[in-house]
């Protein structure tokens, strides 16, 4: 039995890696994508282009402007002196924000204790706008506190002391890079498995495999092993790059991480083979691969939290192996979550994997075409 599986596995590897271009596609792009995406995927804004519209031109207004210009998050690109200049700046995206200080700002601040300030923000990217407003409000709050202290006014009766655990500076790279580990592992295993049976069916060689002494289980293992081995190897390289290159802390146990990886590969290889054995042509296999990949990534919590999704979509994510694996990845990397707290993430992936692999092996023989 093992001899037959061994032979089939070697044949699968040859089919996959014999073509130089196919070899390249499986190994090079994931590593490049990790590097590029690791830098690209961030919710932190730096050097937000903003314009200053200062009609007051006082010491106080300059102090406020200097707080923005001195912040690493903001970058002053223009100074304007006319209402009509605001529109073109925002429309053309040259500035994301205009800080407008009215003519009577400093006088009202001194006389009434409150001066009006206006900020105009480009809301086309709502997330960027929300983050930008957060940064701006922090600067305004600091100005307020300093002003009140100078004026000798009473401090509030309750003050907040805020801290963030696991990621004290709230760096979004620490959140995103472990996610990319899952993302690329998913893409690579789909790449390896989703077209493998479909290609043999289209070329007619699958019928030949079916008349050999290989039993369905052996056929299944032979088809699944390349996905497993390549998935394990690439995930390991990606985890190494995530920790050594991007400096994301790996606080939990490697064993926990790899048990998670094993269950995840079981489910994605199963999915890939199921799609593949369901399709008669490679075009259908490719369509199936995308119909699986895209929702798996969008509904995984990779970029947007599952908790923000409507109830029925949250239920749908229970079928998504990626959503479990992301909890494991982020838990093990950042929180150092111990093994026993993650058991509820391991078993659903294993169940999804076993069900899909069983379906795939049934489809090997019973798919009519």
């Amino acid at each position, binding site marked *: 039995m093992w001899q037959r599986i061994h032979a089939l596995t070697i044949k699968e590897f040859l089919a996959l890696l014999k*073509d130089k*271009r*196919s070899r390249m596609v*499986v190994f090079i*792009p*994931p590593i490049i994508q990790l590097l*590029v995406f690791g*830098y690209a*995927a*961030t*919710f*932190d*804004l730096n050097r*937000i282009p903003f314009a200053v519209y200062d009609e007051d031109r006082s010491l106080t207004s300059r102090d406020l402007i200097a707080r923005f210009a001195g912040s690493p998050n903001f970058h002053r690109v223009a100074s304007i002196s006319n209402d009509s200049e605001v529109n073109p700046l925002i*429309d*053309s*995206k040259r500035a994301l924000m205009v800080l407008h200080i009215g003519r009577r700002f400093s006088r009202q601040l001194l006389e*009434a*204790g*409150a*001066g009006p*300030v206006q*900020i105009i923000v480009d*809301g*086309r*990217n*709502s*997330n960027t706008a*929300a983050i930008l407003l*957060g940064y701006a409000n922090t600067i*305004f709050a600091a*100005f*307020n506190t300093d002003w009140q202290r100078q004026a000798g006014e*009473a401090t*509030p*009766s*309750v003050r*907040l*002391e*805020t*801290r*963030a655990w696991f990621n004290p500076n*709230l760096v979004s790279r620490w*959140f995103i890079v472990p996610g990319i580990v899952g993302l690329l592992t998913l*893409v690579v295993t789909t790449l390896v498995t989703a077209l493998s049976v479909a*290609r043999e069916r289209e070329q007619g060689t699958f019928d030949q495999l079916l008349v050999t002494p290989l039993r369905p289980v052996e056929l299944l293992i032979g088809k699944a092993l390349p996905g497993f081995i390549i998935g394990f190897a690439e995930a390991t390289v990606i985890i190494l790059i995530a920790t050594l290159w991007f400096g994301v802390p790996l606080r939990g146990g490697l064993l926990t991480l790899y048990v998670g990886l094993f269950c995840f590969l079981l489910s994605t290889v199963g999915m890939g083979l199921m799609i593949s054995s369901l399709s008669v042509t*490679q*075009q259908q296999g*490719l*369509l199936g691969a995308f*119909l699986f990949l895209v*929702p798996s990534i969008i*509904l995984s919590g990779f970029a*947007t939290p599952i908790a*923000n*999704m409507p109830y029925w979509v949250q239920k749908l994510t229970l079928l998504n192996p990626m959503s479990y694996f992301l*909890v494991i990845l*982020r*838990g093990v990397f950042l929180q150092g979550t111990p093994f026993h*707290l993650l058991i509820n993430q391991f078993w659903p992936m294993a169940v999804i994997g076993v069900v899909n692999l069983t379906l795939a092996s049934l489809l090997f023989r019973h798919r009519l075409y």
Partner: protein
Amino acid sequence: MPPEESTNVSSAPSAAHARRRRLSGLIRKEFIQILRDPSSIAIAFLLPVVLLLIFGYGVSLDAEHVPVAVVVEEPSADTASLVSGFQGSRYFEPMMLRDVESAEKALMSRQVLAIIHLRANFSRQFRQPNGAPVQVIVNGTDSNTGRLVLGYVQGVWRNWLERQAIARGQALVMPLEVQQRVWFNSRLSSRDFLVPGLIAIIMTLIGALLTALVMAREWERGTMEALMVTPVTMSEVLVGKLVPYFILGLGGMALSVVMGIWLFGVPLRGSVWLLLIGASLFLLAALGMGLLISTITKNQFVAGQVAIITTFLPAFILSGFIFDIASMPPIVQGITHLLPARYFVALLQTLFLAGNVWSVILPNALALAAFAAFFLGASRRKLRKRLE
């Protein structure tokens, strides 16, 4: 020699006629093939519906009902009034606890995203000039949500201070009276911003999926060689492949736009004609990219792999659909310029939310046209009537 003369005269129109017939034959053949394996139709019409539904409902960056643990070590009237601020907020789902240990456990397992901790001496310190500290701990694993939650906590805190001041009969005056105005999307609804980008991502997938395999299929099945012995030119083969999928792709685009407007209520403030032109240019670029992949690889398996790796993830992460391009490092920003999706996302976001802003539309449309010309030109160059 009168007969020769007559053939000379009639040869020009008959050549044009023959070309038209060859082309319409090729296009008909392609349509028949599309109908035979309905996966192409599924790609053009089923894929956008399914993806837009999942995306449109599933992707949201607006956090509401965030579970938080509120730890009050010694309840009193003062703590009750502050806590009621959290209970009344639609952003929070408070879980009342008496000790920090259980709250920390809940934070670790992500049952709660933050802890609001009022210590035993809260009421005593509250009366003192320095004020009482409230400890706020957020789970920073999801940094974006963590930052949002901190912002919400500050909002509740500021509202509470205001109500306290009013109760004491004084107005709480802040030195800066900040007025925020968010243009184009005043509610900051993430759906309005995400749906136009989603359409661009979906069209990227459709464009590549439709054509990535078609040339390779002809090579693999040997029908390309059959085509070579006919009088059709390679340009005609290319156009014959392009036209049917362009029509399918535009159908998918129209479906997505209609769904975006009617189902998700995204405003379309720009002109429909500009949208059509932009979409056509982008579709030519995306189909051209698929054709180029297909022409170069001549192998469906490799072409499929290339399509998986080069389309979705780059368009998802590098197009500015969700991650802001301006905050990426300069090298990565340079790389984003190599993606047609980047220009299409900018074009769609502006056309939908802002309107006909020529300073955004023109450069992006020109870039898309350049990409279309490049991909189609390169496919034509790589496509030769020659056997290896």
